[in-house]
Every structure is written in structure tokens, then in C-alpha cells.
């Protein structure tokens, strides 16, 4: 059977990422492709029910736990069936946050090493002002870490945007 394709779409604003994913699915054909959404595992949904702060490393570990779930149940099976799966977002969003705050690249690479390399990787452009309104991982990082730690949201957004680049696609 022909191996499926993995299209990674990352970005700061989850709504833009979802829109880009819908457009990608439309272009491919809905019968041949599906989307793997952020927080399919519900980790961040459950996190929202509990008060408390979390450091960026902890948030990245949670991101990885959610992604491990998505790879196991959504991404790997779709690829194995020869389908196309759009991961929205994938690893670049988390890596960008980690780079923006200065976490070591080897640590992040080890953390996300289970994630298969995408066939194609894209970035959904976003407007910086949307950070505090948008749901998604960056917004969680803002609420759980940046705001309690007194980090300016604009500065954080600018840094993440600077580091946001697609993971190298599989040749």
C-alpha cells in the first residue's frame, strides 16, 4: 500500500491554523484526508479546569504528551492507511515557543523525537494582536506562564514568530 502523507501546519494563532487546515483538506479532497487537531487528547482542556502556573518546560512536556496521543491514534494510523493527514498544529509551534524562551534545542528534539517527519510543512501567518484572544498552545503559555511571570505578551509573540519555522519536510 502507498504510504500516506503528513502535512504540518503551525502558527501562533490556532484559529488561523485551523482555517489553513480546512483549506488544505478542501484542496486535497475531504474523502482522502483528515485533520489531527491540537489537544485531541484533552490534556489542555483538563488543565484549564485547574488553577495554577506552569513553566515553559512543563507546558512543552504536556504538548508532547498530547502530540504522542495524536500520533498514536490519528497521525500514524492515517499514514499507515495511505491517507493524508493534516496536523494542525504539529511540532514547529512548540519548538518556536521553546526557542523563544531559550530552552535547549537538544532537549526539545529529544522530547519530540517520536513525531514522524512531515511530508510538507507550512506556517499559518498570524497577526500579533490575536495572541491574547486566540485559543491554542501559545495562549496557554501566555496564561500559565508569561502573565504570572510578568513577561510582556507582545515580546513573547514577536520572539515566537521569529523562531517559527517549519520542520524540515521528508524528502
Amino acid at each position, binding site marked *: 500500500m502507498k504510504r500516506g502523507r503528513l502535512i504540518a501546519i503551525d502558527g501562533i494563532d490556532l484559529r488561523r491554523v485551523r482555517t489553513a487546515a480546512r483549506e488544505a483538506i478542501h484542496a486535497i479532497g475531504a474523502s482522502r484526508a483528515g485533520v489531527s487537531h491540537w489537544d485531541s*487528547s484533552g*490534556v489542555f482542556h*483538563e*488543565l484549564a*479546569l*485547574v*488553577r*495554577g*502556573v*506552569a*513553566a*515553559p*518546560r*512543563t507546558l512543552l*512536556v*504536556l504538548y*508532547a*504528551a498530547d502530540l*504522542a*496521543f495524536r500520533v*498514536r491514534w490519528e497521525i500514524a494510523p492515517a499514514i499507515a492507511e495511505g491517507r493524508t493527514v493534516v496536523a494542525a498544529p504539529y511540532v514547529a509551534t512548540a519548538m518556536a515557543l521553546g526557542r*523563544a*524562551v*531559550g*530552552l*535547549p534545542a*537538544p*532537549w526539545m528534539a*529529544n*522530547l519530540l*523525537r*517520536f513525531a514522524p517527519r512531515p511530508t510538507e510543512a507550512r506556517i499559518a501567518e498570524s497577526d500579533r494582536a490575536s495572541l491574547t484572544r486566540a485559543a491554542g498552545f501559545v495562549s496557554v503559555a501566555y496564561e500559565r*506562564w508569561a502573565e*504570572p*511571570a*510578568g*513577561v*510582556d505578551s507582545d*515580546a*513573547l509573540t514577536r*520572539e515566537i514568530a521569529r523562531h517559527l519555522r517549519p520542520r524540515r519536510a521528508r524528502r
Partner: protein
Amino acid sequence: MRLPIDARNRALRGRVRRHFEQHPRRGLLVAFEGPDGSGKTTQRKLFKTWLVAEGYDVVTTKWNSSDLIKPIIKGRKAARALSPEEFSLLHVADFRCRMDAEVLPALWEGKIVIADRFLFTGLARDAARGLEFDHVLKLYQPLVWPDMVFYFSVSPTTSRTRVAADRVPNFYEAGQDVTDIVDPVESYQRFITRVIREYDSLSNIFNFTTVDAEQGIAEQHQRLRELFREAERRPWSSWNVDAFAEWIATGLPA
């Protein structure tokens, strides 16, 4: 603008070193490790009572107990929904939360922290589930090395007998997610044998202080007192600079 996290920051590292060199009573981290049924919780409680009576300020942290992550893990364990990778990552997240909120602030203030299980529990269990040791160890970086690790050593049969005397081991405790054995007690015996093998390796690599947990309770406790008296005189370990520097740089309130 520079964002605040940078554990390699020289000034921050210098601040950490000075703090621990100059603090009149340095914090101490004491980890209690060992398989279920090894009696470490009994010893941990006795040890804490003794330290408090001696005038020490003592904080206890337990495995899988953070307010933020524990509910997430609990629900998934009940649903038997965790792969070994997810199991590992969520326990790392719980550990990190407790380090940032409980362990590092207490050590910074010069308190004694007693950890009822530390990262070695994650290493032993994850390795027993088939994950690579190096991969798991890196997940726990930046590492904090305890001043003392008391390893309560028992045989797999003793562990199984003690655990199964009170209750049926739960699904993940029995390692049924990886053994494919239907009977929880039988699965526990198989899984704990692997876990103990990993613990024994860790004990050799990281030079744990082994306590023969098949001995009497009073005898073990006396031994812990003696070992503590020897260890508290050691200088502060500069290996932990990175973890403290990152914790300070993160800027979160304790």
C-alpha cells in the same frame, strides 16, 4: 527584549552559587526510592518525624501529586488510555510542576525536602516499559541530584507478597499495559521484576544508599539516622546550578 529563561546565564549561575555557599543552613534533598511494598513510606514518615523533632524545617513531596497534573493522569489511568510514552511524559510534567512549586523553593529557603519517590521512579518504570533510558533521563533535564538517595531493596517476591496482601494491584501498577497478562498479581510479579532490575542498575550508576528493606522497621530507621548525619556535612553539589538558574529565570511565583 530578552525573554527571561536562560539557565546558562552567567550572572544567574553566580547568584545560585553564592546563595548556597553563603546560606547558613543549606537545603537538603533526600529521596526515598524502591518498589511498592518495600516499606519506604513507613520509613519516610518515621524519618520526617525524627527530623522535625531535631528542629529541621521539613517539606515532603510525593510522586504524582501535583494539583495541576495529577487529575489528568488519574483520569487516563482509570480509562487505561496511556501508552508508555504518554505515561512517561505526563509523569515528567507532574515531576516538573512539583520541582518548580515545592522542591526548588524549599531547598532555596534552606529546608529539608523528603521526596517519596524521585525521578528514579520514572526512569525505572519507563525503562521497564521498554523506553530508552537515555531518552527518559533527558526528559528530566535540567537534573537535580538529591543529596541522599535511600534505596529500599526487596526481592520481587517480597514486593508482590506485601502488595497483594492488602489489595489487587491496579492496571498500570501491575504493568498490564506492557505484559499482556490478564491476572494482575501475576502481571505485577513479572513487571516488578523488570522494575527492580532497573532500580538495581540505577543504584549502581548513581551510587544509591541501599537499605535492606527485609530488615526490621526500627533497625532500618536507625540506619537512616546514621546515614543522614554523615551526608548532611557534605558540601552543596554544584551539579544542580542549572536547575536552580532556570527556576529563577522562569520568574514564576513559588
